């Protein structure tokens, strides 16, 4: 990996970087669409290329079950299997093990779980996770970590963090010996729950191992914790992580979360949210999410966003025909997915431009003003951005601020 910091924001901790991997250049900060099963829901790789996407994510847990490692090896890796010639990242499979399997038991050796096919006890060790990710062949691979829900408290959190450090050592060792470390870049995952002291300890240990680590992810968040705690942990981690390594915030996809994370120094994020919400009929726009299932769009002949360059909007696909087909025709899901991924790419692309131009604080203010104009600013965003020197309420101290997590939705009137 070549990693170069091109510009940093004069006020916040945001930065623009060029990350060069085996399958091309990805400019950071960026949002990574999720292709869980080796396909972005309903789209072809050519459609993804049309959107200018240069880095997507596959899930190791799922690909290991289907099509299985043998098929991927025969195909010559996941890139070839799915016809994707750009950069690819795989997770370690640990998160899905814990969230999808009730019987997973963590031991020092690895994660013991019941095979979804045979019910047989199966062990996923750090070495095995590396080996599976080597077969998949992604440009960025993740260490196996000991995942606990962000709502977990007590000694388990510290234990998981310590074990994640030990498993990182095993991953580094296995990865180096495999000789794959030239082509595939291993990322560490910082754990430690919501406890700043544990996070600090984890950061310290993992930074010590930086020679074996191409980048760092911030894990164990976005599991339902208070947003005011979420951003403080992100800030703490991003501040301490080395400047010459990319920083990846896992499972982050709401526009406001993305921009706050970028302002706190995060370079990459992924989430199923924009593609999943598309299938339920929600289009993301710079004025907030739009629920196309609402009756008011039945006779609305404008596109989702007439300034949007995505194939759906630029072809003039109306809200009305999307209302008619959404949730009923797969092609409507594709249309809104194309739009939402373009929206995510635009939010991040504009951030890159603004950081380079030295206008990132202004961009933050104008984005939030547009996105939350009617519903009010989430208080946690105001707080988080104030902590890096940007006041969303500047010039409008009377602006509405809402407590809580502040996700903005148009609720459905359809059954």
């Amino acid at each position, binding site marked *: 990996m070549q990693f170069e910091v091109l510009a940093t924001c004069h006020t916040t901790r945001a930065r623009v970087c060029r990350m060069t991997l085996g399958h091309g250049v990805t400019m950071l900060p960026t949002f990574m669409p999720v292709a869980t099963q080796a396909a972005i829901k309903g789209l072809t790789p050519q459609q993804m290329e049309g959107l200018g996407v240069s880095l997507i994510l596959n899930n190791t847990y799922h690909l290991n079950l289907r099509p299985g490692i043998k098929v991927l090896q025969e195909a010559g890796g996941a890139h070839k299997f799915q*016809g994707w010639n750009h950069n690819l990242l795989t997770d370690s499979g640990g998160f899905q093990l814990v969230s999808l399997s009730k019987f997973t038991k963590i031991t020092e050796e690895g994660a013991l779980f019941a095979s979804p096919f045979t019910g047989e006890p199966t062990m996923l060790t750090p070495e095995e996770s590396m080996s599976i990710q080597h077969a998949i062949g992604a440009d960025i691979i993740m260490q196996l970590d000991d995942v606990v829900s962000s709502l977990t408290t007590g000694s388990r959190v510290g234990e998981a963090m310590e074990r994640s450090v030990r498993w990182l050592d095993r991953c580094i060792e296995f990865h180096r010996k495999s000789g794959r470390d030239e082509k595939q870049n291993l990322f560490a995952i910082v754990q430690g729950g919501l406890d700043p002291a544990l996070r600090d300890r984890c950061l310290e240990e993992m930074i010590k191992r930086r020679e074996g680590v191409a980048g760092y992810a911030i894990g164990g968040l976005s599991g339902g914790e208070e947003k005011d705690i979420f951003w403080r942990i992100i800030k703490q981690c991003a501040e301490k992580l080395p400047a010459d390594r990319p920083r990846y915030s896992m499972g982050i996809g709401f526009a406001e979360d993305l921009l706050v994370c970028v302002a706190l120094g995060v370079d990459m994020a992924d989430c199923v949210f924009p593609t999943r919400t598309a299938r339920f009929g929600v289009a993301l726009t710079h004025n907030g999410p739009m629920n196309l299932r609402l009756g008011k769009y039945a*006779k609305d002949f404008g596109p989702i966003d007439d300034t949007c360059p995505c194939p759906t909007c630029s072809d003039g696909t109306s809200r009305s025909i999307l209302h008619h087909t959404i949730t009923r025709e797969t092609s409507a899901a*594709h249309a809104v997915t194309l739009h939402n991924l373009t929206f995510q790419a635009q939010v991040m692309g504009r951030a890159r431009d603004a950081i380079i131009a030295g206008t990132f604080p202004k961009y933050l203010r104008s984005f939030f003003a547009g996105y939350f104009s009617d519903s009010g600013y989430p208080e946690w965003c105001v707080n988080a951005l104030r902590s890096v020197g940007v006041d969303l309420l500047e010039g409008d101290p009377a602006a509405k601020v809402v407590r809580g997590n502040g996700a903005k939705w148009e609720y459905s009137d359809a059954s």
Partner: protein
Amino acid sequence: MSTLRLDIESSSGTLFGPRLGKVSLQRDAEGSTLEILTPGLITSTSRGVVPHLSRNNVNATAAICWVHVPFESFLEVSPPTPTLQPGAHPLHKYLGFRRDQHIVSTSLRDPSDDREMPANGNGFANAYCLRGVRKVTPADWRNWVVKMQPDIVTALTDVPFTAGPHSQKRMTKSLERSSAWLSDLLQPISDTGVDTRRQRSILVHMAGGVIPTARKAFSLSLLETLYGKEAEAVKPLATLDEGVSGYTFDLVPLHKALSPTAAPIRSTHPPTLAATMAALDPHVDLPTPEASAKLVPLLHASLSPLPQHKPRIAHSAASPHEMLLLIRDVGVDLFDAHWAQRAADIGVALDFTFPAPNGGADARADLGHNLYDTRYAHDFSPFADAFGTCETNNDDKDTARTTCPCIACSPPRLGTPLRHSTVDGPYPAHAPAPFTRAYAHHLLHTHEMSAHALLAAHNLAVLDAFFAGVRVVLAARPSAFAREVERFAEAYDGGLAVWAQARAAWAEVALARGKGRMAREKEKQEQDTLGTAVEL
């Protein structure tokens, strides 16, 4: 004004032999003409869109040229939203079809839908939408059509979708209604005073059910010279037929009436799977070869009195075998691709050519591959053996194959990639590789919608190539055509055994995904005759 015409390049000289020609739609105001070589295909739609293909993939699929839009799903909102679309060419605009690429036709009902419906009345036809049955008057239909400006519209017809058999009296009434409703569509719209008849081309469905004399009577009624009020209403037309640009045949109600009363389907599948299949796929009846053969005299009865130079269009032909029969023995010019598109829903990748390859195997080959089958899990070949891909080297003339131009076998570049910031570096262009059976197999088993996108485009391309092959034989060696049809029937399994296997596998995977997903799929299959549920 737009005119639909058929130029017959060659025919066997008989009334009903195979015809080679070209259907053209001339749009005078735009000075443009779209052409489809015949025999050729019409793409079917569901809720106004080509199932599984987003607009950029529709535009990248050359086989999609004439698109047929059943209108009834739009009755959910009143007035129907496509009739409110502002601007020029409202229906094209609303559905995203391109004026320079797509001919758009519409009919009130989905010609592939065989659900039972309440009887039509003298002044209205019944149509089906998500919110239930809707009555549509001939005047509604005329007004909507004028507003939407489809290139081609099918007049309302009274096809009984009530339980048969139908009495002679019922049949007579049905014929009278159908011609009255056609006459209504041929009238100018009086309240605007504009003569709008000639902005569109009108097709008429050949009524009369399975009674040859009734079918003939309907055709004769189209040819009767009109007098008095009736003549005044459609002035300057002397007969109804003068205002008709082509004849359509909805085969689904005929198949239903001609097939022996369906015995309760005995299934070799376990009860839950059988129930799942029954719930998911209510439209499975494949006509027997005998039932297909019985179509021929019925279509003859309709066509014999009528002029020969107008296009003959068949909806919902059950297989390529039936299409060939109707080309050879009736001279049908256009077929909808419903069959091939449906195959994409159930995971079948078509793989056949006309003429059939020489020196085939002993057993009849399948017309396609059930990609659910585990035999494809490690199969990295492209979807079809009979076609090359963007990577095939065709230098050797002996083994040269037609390249399948579809988005799966020859993936296209879809425009210039979007750039999202000024610092974005170059975005390398790679030569895309054809998608493999193993990949589609994986996508089907993981319920990924991309599988259907690839299959839908591929199957349309294969059917398009099939018709191209038919045209080549009709042009170069017309006398060999009948023999080639026989050879095709010997080479390929017309019983579609592979379909049954695919349907079972499709149901099995749906079943394995749980109750919520099953409920969504069942709802989708009940509502529409094409497409699969959105995977949430």
